[in-house]
């Protein structure tokens, strides 16, 4: 458990520091690179939470596709390279973000999350899951089939709606950047 704790603290510190760099750095390109680092470390956190499939999706979509899009946009809009001052809301924004953080932490501590006493690790026996009578196996030893069953059975309508959303987003993006009329 100690090595897991060490991994968690390392990744938590790197996440927060690189996320702060994203919002504080003057150079937009460096901010984007820090964002890629944040995405990769968050993928590591997903592995720590035994969500391997989500970690792979995170690396493919966030660290791959979304970062490339963002770097493209930075390169195509060159004037943003010349430094980036904050707007006049800098200190109010800082206060608001701190208040939001305090409020969320307070609510998190006060709420009863109905959680198990300790994590169910991938190798744990079925009894640890707390559902032996229903015949449920330890889902964390292999999450991908469980996710597939949920996606294609219980969540099949949102799944189809997501494909329509992606199609609409592609058409909208094409219509927006098309040269010519407009």
């Amino acid at each position, binding site marked *: 458990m100690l090595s897991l704790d060490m991994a968690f603290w390392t990744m938590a510190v790197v996440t*927060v520091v690189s996320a702060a760099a994203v919002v504080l750095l003057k150079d937009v390109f460096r901010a984007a690179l820090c964002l890629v680092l944040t995405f990769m470390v968050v993928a590591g956190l997903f592995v720590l939470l035994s*969500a391997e499939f989500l970690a792979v999706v*995170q690396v493919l979509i966030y660290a791959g596709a979304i970062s490339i899009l963002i770097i493209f*946009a930075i390169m195509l809009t060159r004037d943003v390279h010349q430094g980036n001052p904050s707007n006049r809301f800098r200190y109010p924004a800082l206060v608001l973000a701190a208040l939001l953080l305090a409020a*969320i932490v307070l609510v*998190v501590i006060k709420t009863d999350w109905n959680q198990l006493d300790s994590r169910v690790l991938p190798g744990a026996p079925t009894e640890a899951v707390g559902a032996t009578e229903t015949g449920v196996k330890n889902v964390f030893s292999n999450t991908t089939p469980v*996710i597939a069953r949920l996606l294609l059975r219980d969540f099949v309508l949102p799944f189809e709606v997501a494909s329509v959303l992606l199609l609409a*987003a592609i058409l909208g993006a094409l219509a*927006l950047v098309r040269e010519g009329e407009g």
Partner: protein
Amino acid sequence: MSLLHFQVLSAALFAIGVYGVLARRSAVLILLSIELMLNAVNINLIALAAYADTVRITGQVIAIFVITVAAAEVGLAMAIILRLFRHRSSVDVDDVDIMKW
């Protein structure tokens, strides 16, 4: 390492994102901050799936939907930013006030 740790980490990431959205002027940097906030939400969902929903890991499925919506959102936002830059030669959100009255 407990659920609380992950939730506080996620709250910190979300607050950093909120600060970025409010304090930055470049539309690109605002978009980066929104991505940070979406990632914070995903950490929260997956941590709850791992600690409190160990029979049906619904949080992981909802995280997949969040990632899908984020991908669509980035594509559209990039199109809008490029269009804006072509029109005004600037991506400063303070310059974009044509829809204000």
